[in-house]
């Protein structure tokens, strides 16, 4: 399903048809390891699961460019051996198929050694000028000219999810959001991180400075396919 003309939602990813660009956000590789370090001994399933999901995606589309829209890995501070290994594994998988563009997220403070090893550049944002699209993580407002010129912003960071309620029942789903920010169209992507849906936009405090009053935002719920639910205030 298209969220905007020419921008399609495929699972948790976005697909810009014309330029053959695939966008993923918030993989948070190493999340389990971070939990382990805090004494929550989660068994490791994330890497395998993430890899499987990416492989599925790569089979679906023939792409030229893949954009990781921030927070490829979790961890503030150092990079552990496991993270290093897993992150490289994912990057290798992507590089085989397309040019990889890394966008810096708030968890990516020291992504550089990994990027350097693979000869990749880390960008603060990535714009597709012909379409006036700009892809950025969304943890802080960027004021560069290219960003200002864009008509469509695509951000991650928020890990949006929505709970649907009926009587006593409540279930939560990952979702895409479509709204506006200062005259521009704004798309918020769900996190690629498995096992957890994200933060409920109805109940939790919003994180990104790009989001404030979202009741007029349109909600696209991710289930077996994408369901367009209309405006948040009407759900």
């Amino acid at each position: 399903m298209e969220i905007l003309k020419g921008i399609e939602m495929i699972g948790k990813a976005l697909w810009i048809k014309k330029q053959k660009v695939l966008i993923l956000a918030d993989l948070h590789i190493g999340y389990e390891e971070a939990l382990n370090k805090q004494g929550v001994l989660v068994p490791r399933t994330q890497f395998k699961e993430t890899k499987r999901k990416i492989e599925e995606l790569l089979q679906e589309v023939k792409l030229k460019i893949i954009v990781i829209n921030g927070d490829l890995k979790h961890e503030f501070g150092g990079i552990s051996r496991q993270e290093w290994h897993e992150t490289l594994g994912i990057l290798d998988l992507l590089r085989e198929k397309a040019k990889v563009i890394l966008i810096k997220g708030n968890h990516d403070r020291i992504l550089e050694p990994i990027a350097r090893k693979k000869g990749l550049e880390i960008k603060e944002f990535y714009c597709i000028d012909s379409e006036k699209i700009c892809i950025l993580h969304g943890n802080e407002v960027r004021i560069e000219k290219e960003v200002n010129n864009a008509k469509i912003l695509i951000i991650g960071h928020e890990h949006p999810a929505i709970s649907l309620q009926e009587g006593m029942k409540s279930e939560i789903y990952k979702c895409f959001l479509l709204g506006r920010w200062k005259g521009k169209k704004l798309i918020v992507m769900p996190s690629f991180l498995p096992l957890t849906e994200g933060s409920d936009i109805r109940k939790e405090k919003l994180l990104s400075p790009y989001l404030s009053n979202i009741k007029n935002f349109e909600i696209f719920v991710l289930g077996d396919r994408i369901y367009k639910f209309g405006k948040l205030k009407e759900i």
Partner: protein
Amino acid sequence: MESEIKQAKLRSKEEILGVLDELVKEWFFSKFKEFSMPQLYGVMPIHERKNIIISAPTGGTKTLTAFLSILNYLVSLAIKNELEEKVYAVYVSPLKALNNDIAVNLIEPLEQIKEIAKKKGIKLQEIRVAVRTGDTPTNEKQKMLKKPPHILITTPESLSIVLTTRKFIELLKAVEYIIVDEIHALANKRGVYLSLSLERLQYISTIYPCRIGLSATISPLEEIAKFLVGFEDGKPRDCLIADVQFAKKLDMKVLSPVKDMIETSAEEMQKGLYGLIDKLIQEHKTTLIFTNTRSATERVVAHLKEMFPSSYMENIGAHHSSLSKQHRFDIEQRLREGKLKVVVTSTSLELGIDIGYIDLVILLGSPKSVARAIQRIGRAGHKLHEIAKGRILVLDQDDLVECAVLLKEAIEKKIDKVQIPSNCLDVLAQQIYGCAIQQKWNIDELFNCIKKSYCYNNLGREDFLSVISYLAGEYALEARDVYAKIWYDSSTHEIGKRGRLARMIYMTNIGTIPEESFVNVVIAAGEQRNEKIGAVDEGFLERLKPGDVFVLGGHKYEFCYTRGMNAYVKATVHRPPTIPSWFSEMLPLSFDLALGIGRFRKLLKEKIKTSREKEAKEFIASYLYVDKNSVDAIYNYFILQHKYAEVPDESCLLVEHCRIENKHYAIFHSLYGRRVNDALSRALAYLVARLGGRDIELGINDNGFLLASMQSIQVERALNMLNPKNLKEVLEEAVHNTEVFKRRFRHCATRSLMILRNYKGRTKSVGKQQFKSGFLLAASMKISRDFPVLKETRREILEDMMDLQNAGVVLGWIREGRVKIQQIHTDLPSPFSLNLIMQSHADLLKIEDKIAFLKRMYKAIQEQVSKQKRF
């Protein structure tokens, strides 16, 4: 040789005098006139090193009974200068604040004996006593190593820690006596944990220590005895039972605060209740009031102060487990000094802390079990031969019937049975970790040692090995080192500890009591948005559904949603509360007592059908031990139900169908207590939901349960599908991934040391544990259904929280026809179902999968949108 659990014999005074040392004898009779009943039963067997369990009411000199022979032995050694540098006796109690009682029962007697010896010019070696709990400072612990205590006073947790301490173990290798006090408070995972520590102690011991158990009123004593002593060669070890439970005479009555409970308004009821409480307090010197919940404790204190300001100021106090240690000590101290007129408590004063003289115990509402009633009332009358006076004040008709039957069972000495959890894999994981820290083990030898515990006697080898695999990190999928706590060498069949931090992790994370967490109640919207108004416990939150109205701090709030450790509410509510705020703390009615009520219902029903009012009332008066007001109230309640519908009883399970606002209700009058009803209702709800393809609402209390749905409820088909054999399987499906499951999983994961509360110097808040356990649960589900932590979560829910066993028994009765199902249709719920409709614990059994729900919600939105477009 057959092992034996048998009754202890009453021994003669002369026999005891014959074995007591002159010094001990002189000391004893300087303090007491005679030996007490527990002493006449217990002192000799302990002298003869026989395992024994002594069950006697509080004030029954139990502790001294246990210690008398031991003191006598130690004194006789001390005279001969033969006391060695080792621990002779280990005393374990679930109470943390032991100092005061120990001072009374041990330090003082020892001091006084020393005095006597000095006067007589007898030289005595020093007999040392030391307390070791979580609060004991390190330098004290160091001192114990240099000068070992002859008597070590400790808690279950601290005992297991000393068992991993290489130096201290040396001092424990020839322990001669183990005393377990307050064993009635250990019929839970903490007791399971202790049972393994006792086997670990026995394992390192070069001699067989004599085990002594002390208990308040509890049943069945044979099982408690086996729990105390464990198994040897597959058979229970020998144990004597000294049952002096009824040595203390009880004067118990059930009182109703008003004449007619049906016609009385809530205000009048309240007035009547507090008037009666005040009257009783004023007629006595010191009164102890038990409520069933902590919040009720606070409420009673507040109301008494408000309604009788001149009577209650400094002389009233509350005592419950949420209050600070200091506050509780203060209350206990003032009680002992006789400075308080009345103390209101929930469960914290049930245990045998010395609280001085109490001449009246009031129970507010049903204590839900005969044993608990006797334990509580037994706090009155300080000495064993004094009469304990207790008054049970009932709060509504169901409460009245329940308490009246409870009183009958108590007077007729029918004590309800407790169940001790078995094969708990989380506790096992923690203990195996402890074992591995202590030494290298051959796993067969370890398995044998574990199976000696009563709680693991029938542990399957597969389950044992799964715990070993878990601890060895074999379930860790991609990264083995994640939670490998032990190493396992499959060629030598040995296990041992792993990592330098092992002991530290163990010491700072062991324990079985889940940390109670409180959730902030926060205003969701409007002017007061984000204002914090108070806190409710996590268990209470679990029961809430969006839209529920509850009371907090005297105000009503509507629950909207939760986020992390916050519960968001609306402050402007004009509806009455839909859920009582004390629900999560409610004690479940015991199965045996529930059956007793069912029996009474049947007898009274027959009387009502066959005879006149006068005879029916005479029957009530003669069968139950209640006053005329109560007789009238019970009669009126039953006649109302009889005329309107049908009286359910022990052989008639009434299922009442009715419709309220288009919703179908099936009300099951299954009087089996909440634990059984929890199991039956969820299993049936699951089957009904599957038949209809839609979620089912359910409500549960002690007297029954209800199912509700917008569709008709196929009771018969579901009942036919359920039997004692498939009950467990159905329930496992029904509870899978529910809110209860998530919460219990966190507790089990914490006990299994999969979530470490304290790690690398950091302490995690319960909130953080909770948030992260959601992720942990999702990941664990991916491993295997038989992952031991998941398996234990299911076991705990089915066997400890619910009562799977007795639910199976009930289903068996239904199959055999011993219990008949009678279905009726009513226009309005019958009198007996009012409490169930109004204040039962409500929940939802989800059957519809997440995607199907999403599709349905999507369709609903679509329809709404197209409707709007049309107008």
